């Protein structure tokens, strides 16, 4: 009887039933003689499979009971919150934000490994001039790598660390809408699976940007990617609404906006960006889907449509999206610096203001991705100007980190090492960004490895260094155990050196004219590419150290105290891991989050009165 309860088994059965009904009815219609395309079969099959999956996992059971006016079973609803220590709750529709955070983290790191393996295949192909895997395979591999890594950057810190920590950091018992929170997570497995099994549908080779006309002509795998992207978009809109309501309405008494930890501020701005921008790209991808499946002609130049229009709509989301990926990382970095420098965060109000200005400005710079697209030329100079303007608030965030480190009493624990790694990587990413913002240099460097290097320095530098820093920093809080400091240091040095050895030479390769998204290159670049591939394999090996450290420490690490770092934010004022209701008594906040200065070893007493 277990299998009949809401859960993974029933979800898989539901998805299968949905897929069979959706695809089957259209296949039958095709047999009867109606004109049915493969795209329509895939589309309806996927849609009903998704609905079946959500019904099976139990996502709608409480809402349905409520909607028909029946009494919701309170005990069942509380049971859905999960029981502490029960591993099964991680595989159920559990409404505890801490469980959902761990679900997101596990999903994100799994995707990170899969997408990283795809990158290894790419470097295998590129190690020497000539073709090994073949052009089509290479295109599909880099597209899958891109799509998955973008998802990692979008969900890992916001969905994982954010879900786990934001309610605790503001002194709440949970998110404002726990069931919606669980729904946002359970919307993800099916689209992720669809991207993972993409090669079975013929793969997609347009890259994650999915520009038409290529994406209109490519095979079914392309359609699968578009549908997966829209689904993830819906999930992130729901989660953005949830975060904003939580932050604005659920703070403990005394937790004024300017007393919020900077990490919470970063996620707030991120959520606003996600809320406002995501529906635009979801609209654009839907139009593209309709062009493919229903015969519309939004982006079909041959029938009066406009290809550049797609790029505008796409980048209107996708430029803010790089801040959706980057800001949470910046927030995690700024959160960690004061703790290991034992100093208040430098220029906290200015850092908050900078996050907000980055958010506002990020909507005015999208067309710098399109300088060579043939868009209206009068647009070039204003966009170049706003793009360079956005480096001012970003620089202030940077200065906030540096100013905190300056004259601090530094403790070089693993999270702090990642902070320094971030500072170096993001600095290079920021400086090289200027060349891509400038129209004349961009015209030369566009679509070369210079862009690949710049992008990885900003997104790995911002999101992934921030993710590793945050994961080590909050590991004791989440698991109740300490990670191995030695393995953590090994991971840091190995990863950082390999990362720089991989991507620094790519700037040079790009200037030399090596094109990105092409499986082959001129023979004289072979030596450097071999070096880059060698370094890239080292990145992968270093991540294996991280996985080993996390798994082993979670099982057998020494018990962590409630507040091993002597930090002052609220999440450290409760047990590790926090009890299921987060706090035994909701604290009252009487001061800011970073009032350090008493020297090491002086615990932050008197800050939060339980």
């Amino acid at each position, binding site marked *: 009887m277990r299998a009949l309860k809401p859960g993974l088994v029933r979800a898989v059965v539901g998805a299968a039933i949905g897929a069979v009904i959706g695809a089957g009815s259209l296949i039958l219609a095709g047999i009867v003689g109606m004109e049915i395309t493969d795209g329509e079969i895939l589309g309806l099959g996927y849609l009903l499979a998704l609905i079946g999956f959500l019904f099976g996992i139990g996502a709608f059971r409480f809402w349905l009971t409520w*909607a*028909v*006016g029946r009494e919701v079973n309170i005990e069942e609803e*509380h049971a859905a*919150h999960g029981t502490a220590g029960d591993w099964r709750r991680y595989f159920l529709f559990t*409404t*505890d934000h801490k469980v959902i955070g761990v679900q997101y983290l596990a999903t994100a790191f799994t995707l990170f490994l899969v997408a990283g393996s795809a990158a290894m295949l790419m470097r295998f192909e590129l190690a020497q001039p000539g073709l090994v895997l073949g052009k089509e395979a290479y295109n599909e591999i880099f597209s899958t790598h891109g799509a998955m890594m973008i998802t990692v950057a979008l969900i890992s810190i916001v969905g994982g660390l954010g879900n786990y920590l934001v309610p605790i950091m503001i002194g709440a*018992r*949970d*998110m*404002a*809408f*726990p069931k919606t929170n669980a729904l946002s997570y359970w919307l993800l497995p099916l689209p992720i699976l669809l991207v993972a099994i993409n090669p079975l549908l013929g793969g997609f080779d347009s890259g994650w940007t999915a520009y038409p006309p290529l994406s209109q002509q490519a095979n079914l795998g392309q359609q699968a990617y578009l549908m997966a992207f829209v689904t993830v978009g819906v999930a992130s*809109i729901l989660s*953005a*609404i*949830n975060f*904003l*309501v939580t932050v*604005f*309405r*659920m703070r403990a008494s005394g937790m004024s906006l300017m007393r919020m930890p900077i990490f919470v501020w970063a996620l707030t701005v991120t959520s606003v960006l996600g*809320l*406002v*921008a*995501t*529906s*635009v790209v*979801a*609209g*654009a991808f839907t*139009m593209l889907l*309709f*062009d493919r499946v*229903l*015969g*519309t*002609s*939004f982006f079909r130049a041959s*029938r*009066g*449509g*406009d290809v550049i*229009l797609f790029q*505008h*709509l796409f980048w*209107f989301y996708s430029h803010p999206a790089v801040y959706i990926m980057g800001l949470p990382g910046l927030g995690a970095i700024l959160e960690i610096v004061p703790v290991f420098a034992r100093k208040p965060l430098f220029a906290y109000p200015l850092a908050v203001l900078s996050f907000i200005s980055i958010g506002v400005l990020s909507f005015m710079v999208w067309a710098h991705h399109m300088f060579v697209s043939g868009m209206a030329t009068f647009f070039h100079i204003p966009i170049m100007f706003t793009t360079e303007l956005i480096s001012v608030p970003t620089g202030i965030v940077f200065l906030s980190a540096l100013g905190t480190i300056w004259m601090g009493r530094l403790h070089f624990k693993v999270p702090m090492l990642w902070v320094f790694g971030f500072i170096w990587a993001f600095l290079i990413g920021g400086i090289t960004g200027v060349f891509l913002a400038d129209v004349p240099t961009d015209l030369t460097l566009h679509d070369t490895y210079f862009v690949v290097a710049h992008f990885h320095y900003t997104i790995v530098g911002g999101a992934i260094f921030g993710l590793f820093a945050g994961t080590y920093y909050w590991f004791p809080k989440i698991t109740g155990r300490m990670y191995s400091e030695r393995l953590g240091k090994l991971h840091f040095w190995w990863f950082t050196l390999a990362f720089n050895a991989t991507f620094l030479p790519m700037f040079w390769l790009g200037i030399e004219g090596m094109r990105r998204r092409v499986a082959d290159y001129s023979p004289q670049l072979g030596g450097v590419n071999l070096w880059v591939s060698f370094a890239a394999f080292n990145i992968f090996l270093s991540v294996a150290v991280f996985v080993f450290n996390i798994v082993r420490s979670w099982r057998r690490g020494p018990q962590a105290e409630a507040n091993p770092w002597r930090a002052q934010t609220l999440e450290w004022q409760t047990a590790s891991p926090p009890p*299921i*209701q987060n706090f035994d008594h909701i604290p009252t906040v009487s001061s800011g989050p970073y009032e350090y200065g008493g020297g090491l070893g002086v615990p932050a007493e008197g800050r939060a009165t339980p």
Partner: protein
Amino acid sequence: MGFGEEDPDAARSNMLLAVKLGILSETMLFGALFAAYFVIRSESPGWPPVAGFERPALLLPGLDMVLLVASSGTMLWTVRSARSGDRSGIRRWIGLTLLLGVIFIIIQGFEFATNGFGLDAGTFGSTFYVLTGFHGAHVLAGLGLMAIVVRRANRGLVSAEHHTIVEATSYYWYFVAAAGVFLFATLYVL
């Protein structure tokens, strides 16, 4: 032990804030569709761009707009009845709103069937059907919400103290009506 928001007043204001934020996101969705429409139309030699197509007549969609605006009025009265705890008033007004919405959908369906051009009729057909179709889908979702209100009101679960669902539905419905008026002005009149 309670999780999430237990205090009914706070839960109510949380829900209404969430609805407002959702409407902001929806506005951006319609913004993208309108942007596509205006860009494509501005690049066309004429509108409709292909000879032989007529823009749909104003009569039926005009009637639809009247229905939509009227249904916002009845929705307003539903909310007023809910606030004052007038249970029979709630049921009367929400029923009327639901009825107006259903007639709207029927007329739109009739219009779609008799327009004489399809979704694949170039950029004209694409923009027309996708914009009105998205709006129609939003109307249908609104009708779903209203059906829930009807059901709960019939069970006596909507009162002066507990009517968040009514207010949430009304916010959403005003948005749908406003979007409909913009669509009408753009697609049929302008």
